[in-house]
Structures are given as C-alpha cells and as structure tokens.
C-alpha cells in the first residue's frame, strides 16, 4: 500500500505539534525555576539570567512575607506518608485480591458487589465522619492518620490485582498443597514471587496516590509544618497568585522528579496494568 507523501508530512507536522504541547508546560516550568527574579512573566523562553537561588531558598526554608516555606520538611513528610502507605496499602490490596481471586467461599460474591458499590460514592462523602473520628481519637494533624486513611481504603482498589491473580494457573497451589505446604507458604513462596509485575503496579499506584493526594491531606494536616507537598504547593500558588512563580516552579520540579523517575523506569508495568484493568472492566 502506498502512503502519499503529503499525508505523511501532515502526520509528522501533527505529531510534532502534539509533542510540543506535551513538553511545553514542563519545559516552561523547568526554565522558570532557574530564572532570576520571582515573576511569572518572562520575555524569552530561555531566561536571560540563570540562577540556582530558588532551589537554595527552598532548602534553606524561604520566608515569604513572614510565612515560612519549610520545603524540606514538606518533602520529608510526603516521603514518609507515601512510603508507609505504599507498604501497607500494597499488602492489604494484594491480600484482598488474592483471597477473592483464588478462593471460593460463602460471601465472596457479596464482598465483590460491596466493593463495587462502595466505589461509586464520591471519596469525600466520608470526609466529615473521618474528620470527627480522627478528632475523637486525637489523631487530627498527624501524618500517621493520613497513612491510616489511605491504607484502610486500599482494599477497594483490588480489581486489577484480582484480574492478574485470576490468570495464574490453579495447579500451582494445588500441587504445593498436596506436598503439604500451608496456605501462608503458598502465598509467600509461590504466588508472590510470580506476581512481580502486579506488585510493581500496585506499589507504584499506591505510592503516587499518596504522593499526589490533595483532598485528604488538606483535610487532616492542619499545621503548616505537617503539610505534604501537595498542600504546601497549592497554598503557595493560591496565596501568592503568580507573584512567586519561580519559587513554586522550583518546588514543582523537585516534587515531580520522584514520581516521574519512578514512572520512566517502571513504565512497562504501569502500561500493562492499565491495559489489563481496562479490558477486565
């Protein structure tokens, strides 16, 4: 089949335009983060004067009209929350998916439909109750409360992992069980080692989920030094409008790097998981 030249040219032009649109916001932000001054406005795309001041400011805890920006603290908080939620959330999600996928027991169908129904409520329907509950337990304004909230709900995202477990052959466990292995041994020694792709996928999604969550973080973390990056950067933009854009840009670059790097390395797993989740419905 012949593809006409002009059609190919047009396609390439479109591809280049889309690529520019994809890259532009990120590129503009990276450029701004090295730009001298604090304003959003920039005469040229590549700034005339380059500086590392904004990054330095962030690490030293910049002062904006008497409001501290404890960026390092925020970063550390976010990392703690994201890593612990990832470990707990992944464990809970895998255990749930495994139980639902590999066992047939009374109440299984009921649990699956409950999970489906719960998924239809907007997440923050539960906000006020969680707020009052945490207030009562004296856990408001604590990172660990945030971890608790993320991990407690992790089981509800089990369908992708369940789909993966469904594809593993039954004979695996059956033969091990006949050899006398307990259920725990089967799970830890046989199933988990075979599940690296799905473990990677679930860990990645729970980690980024906690890293980027804004709604619950803003609800639970009340004091400035306990904020996560999402809350801190939002306030930075919201309070100063566009007057401190370069500082915000530097903060965004630092906040985006861990997620983007993880993503680039683990792209394959993520794409497989996404596709699997989509076709399973």
């Amino acid at each position: 089949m012949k593809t006409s030249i002009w059609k190919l040219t047009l396609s390439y032009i479109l591809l280049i335009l889309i690529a520019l649109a994809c890259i532009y916001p990120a590129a503009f932000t990276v450029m701004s983060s090295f730009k001298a001054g604090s304003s959003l406005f920039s005469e040229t795309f590549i700034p005339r004067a380059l500086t590392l001041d904004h990054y330095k400011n962030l690490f030293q805890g910049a002062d904006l009209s008497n409001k501290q920006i404890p960026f390092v603290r925020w970063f550390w908080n976010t990392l703690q929350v994201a890593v612990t939620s990832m470990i707990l959330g992944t464990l809970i999600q895998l255990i749930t998916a495994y139980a639902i996928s590999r066992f047939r027991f009374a109440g299984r169908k009921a649990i699956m439909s409950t999970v489906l129904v719960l998924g239809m409520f907007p997440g923050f329907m539960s906000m006020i109750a969680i707020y009052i509950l945490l207030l009562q337990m004296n856990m408001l304004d604590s990172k660990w409360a945030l971890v608790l909230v993320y991990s407690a709900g992790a089981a509800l995202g089990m369908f992708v992992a369940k789909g993966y477990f469904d594809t593993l052959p039954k004979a695996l466990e059956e033969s091990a069980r006949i050899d006398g292995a307990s259920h725990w041994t089967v799970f830890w020694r046989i199933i988990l080692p075979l599940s690296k792709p799905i473990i990677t996928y679930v860990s990645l999604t729970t980690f980024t989920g906690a890293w980027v969550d804004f709604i619950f973080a803003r609800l639970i973390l009340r004091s400035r030094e306990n904020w996560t990056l999402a809350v801190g950067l939002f306030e930075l933009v919201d309070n100063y409008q566009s007057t401190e854009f370069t500082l915000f840009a530097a903060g965004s670059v630092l906040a985006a790097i861990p997620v983007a790097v993880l993503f680039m390395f683990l792209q394959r797993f993520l794409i497989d998981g996404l596709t699997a989740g989509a076709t399973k419905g």
Partner: protein
Amino acid sequence: MNNVRKHAKTAAWLSVLTMGLGQIYNRQYGKALLFLFVHVAALTAFFTRLFYDIGGLITLGDKATHLEKVGRRYVNVEGDHSIFLMIYGLLAVIIGLIYIVVYIVNIRDAYRNGQIRDKGGIAPSLAQTIRNVQNEGFPWLLLSLPIVGVLFFTIMPIAFMVLMAFTNYSAPDHIPPKSLVDWVGFKTFGDLLFLKAWSGTFFGVLTWTVIWAVLSTVTCYFGGIFVALLIHQKGIKLKGLWRTIFIIPYAIPQFISLLIMRNLLNDKFGPINQYFRYFGLDGLPWLSDPFWAKVSLIVVNMWIGIPVSMILVMGILTAIPKDLYEAADVDGASGFTKFKNITMPYVLFATAPLLIMQFAGNINNFNVIFLLTKGDPKTLDYNMAGSTDLLVTWLYKLTLDNSRYNIASAVGIIIFLIIASLSIWSYSRTKSFKEEDMIQ
C-alpha cells in the same frame, strides 16, 4: 433418628441461651472460654454504654447548651452534642451487628460440633480448631484486616453522611455544641430540589456537570484514538519515541501540572496570553470568564486525559488480527474502508465499557476543577458555588467552607444515585458484549 441428632440440637439451643454453653456441652473448653469472654465483654459494654449510645442516635440529644442559674450567677451548661451522639450511636450499632454475627457463628459452631459427636466423633480441641481455621477459613483470615479498615473508614463514614442528609445539621442555626440537631426526614432533598434558593444552583451545577462529563469524556476518548492511530500509521518512524513523549503528561503528578496550567493561563502575566499579544492579539480571559474557563477546563483535561486513552488504544490496535487486513487487501479494500470496517469497530467494541467508566469518573473529577479554577469565576446566580463548579466541588465547598452538611450529604447521595445507575447499566452492557463473543 431423633436420638441421633440429639447432641447437635442440645448444643445449639444451649448456645442460643448463652454464647459458649453449647461448646462446654461439646467439651470444647478452650473455645467455650473464648466465646464466654466475648459474651460477657459485649453484654457489659451494652449495659454500661452501648444502649445509651443507641438511644442517643434516636433522639440526637434533648438538652441544648443553655444558661443555668447556680446560686446567684448564670453558668453556661454544656448540652448534648448531637453529632457525637450520632457517631457513637452508629458505632454502637456496628458493634451490635458484629456481636449478632459472632452469636450466629457460635450457634452454628455448636450445632456442627454436636453433629460430629452424633456421628460418634469427638469435637476438635482448640489447637485443632485453630489449624482448621487456617485451612478452611483462610480467605476470611486474609480478609479480616481489610474488612475492618473498610468498615471503619469507608462504610461507617458513608452511613454517617447518609444519615446526615436526613437531619438539619447545617450552619447557621444547627451547629453543635451550640444547638441541637434533629431528624427532619426528606426535607433536605425537598429544599434542594424545590426551594428556589437551592434548586437554581443545584440544577445549574448539575447541567454543567453533565455537559462537562460528556465533553471531557468524548474529547479524551476520541483524542486518544486519534493520536494512537497517528502513531500507528504505516511509514511513521520512531514510534517508541513518539509514544514516550506523548506519555509525559501522564508521568507528571496531576496536582503539579494543574497548578502550572493555572499559571500558564493567567490573564495578565501568563505566557499563553503573552504569545497572543506577540501576534498582536488581545489574549483571552482564560480562567476569569465563565465561558472561557469552561473551555480551558476541557482543553487542560484533554492534555491530562489523552495519554491514558492513547496507551489503551495502542494496546488494542496491536491486538487486531493481521489476517483481517490481509483479507481486506485481497478484496481490494481502500485504506479508508479498512479503517471504517475493521479498525474502528474493533477499537470501539473493546473500549466501550471503559468509556462509561471514564464518564462516571469525570462526573467526580474533583482535581481538575478544584486545582485549575477552584470552581470560579464566582457568580451571583449560584448559592455558594462558582460557575465552573461540579456537584462534587460544590459538595466540598458546602462542607468545608460553609458547614451546610445536610445539603452536602443530599448532593452526595444524588451523585451516588447517578453513578450507580450508570454503572449498573454499563455492567449489563459489558455482559452482553462478552456474550457476543466478538472479542477474545
């Protein structure tokens, strides 16, 4: 016959009487002790605390905070806090339900072990039972922790919110501890749908929510298909590179790209309008004009959403059997015919259920709206909502900024009803797809 089943029945009835009695009868002393302990603990809790709590759930308190004359001075006396009463009542009900489940398990257990004895066996000891639970009850053992988590952090809060929709818990007149909250039945829903002050906002926001969900889903979906096909064409080189570049928006955390976009689209200093001016144009009020704010939202959402659709469609494109195209070539079909009759039906078929799920997701797309426009620009036509607010962001503002909890809960329930009916519809459709056997 009657004689044979004697142990089972006796044990079961004893267990109905008191948890653990049947187990004692079956000579399972360890287990009996456990059940008895649970029983005593639960009864103590009920009589000291839980019955009172359930009562509180029904009345929601009867004494408001008031001044009382003590001697010659008036002292402020703390009244009942209706909302805490409600939460505690709810917790008590949940504990009660768990207690009932344990009670039923206890009776069934006594009956089963009685049956074992009827057949001449000996009921297993505690150590054996634990071993059995590890085998037969293994899935439940695995699920116990997730279930507790979901029960307390998802189900209970949702139940609480649903209850709130039927009260008058709302600023300014019914905020504890200053004043009491009462049950009002369906009045909140009535206000929301028929009272002018609310219904105007509700139907306005609902309309925009539906428009938004349709447009954002359709643009991302067909945008994704378009981009995927563009890369997939014969003769395009460096397919992997294009794909990697086009996934970049997906790799950046959403809140960051949205906050960046908010700056890029800034009316006065943003670079987008700066380029407009460079070409001698005035630039547009991207985020401050109701109409253009909506346009910006759709476009920014495309930027965020197309990569995901693209990835999915690319996966499907590579899965289309090559022989379909070869057969078409033999028949002399043109490129366009092949696209129309093979590629499109295949892609649409495989992704139709996804389309509905994305639609449901967009109805609840809090992040894009809240981080880009915060629901603004503000408008006088709406009550506590801006012109780009979705039902969810309105719910958020009603709750956190305005303390109109009952209205917010009613809005939440309505969102749930919309999404639930969509999902059920999509579920039945998916089933029919699978039965048609076109794919897989």
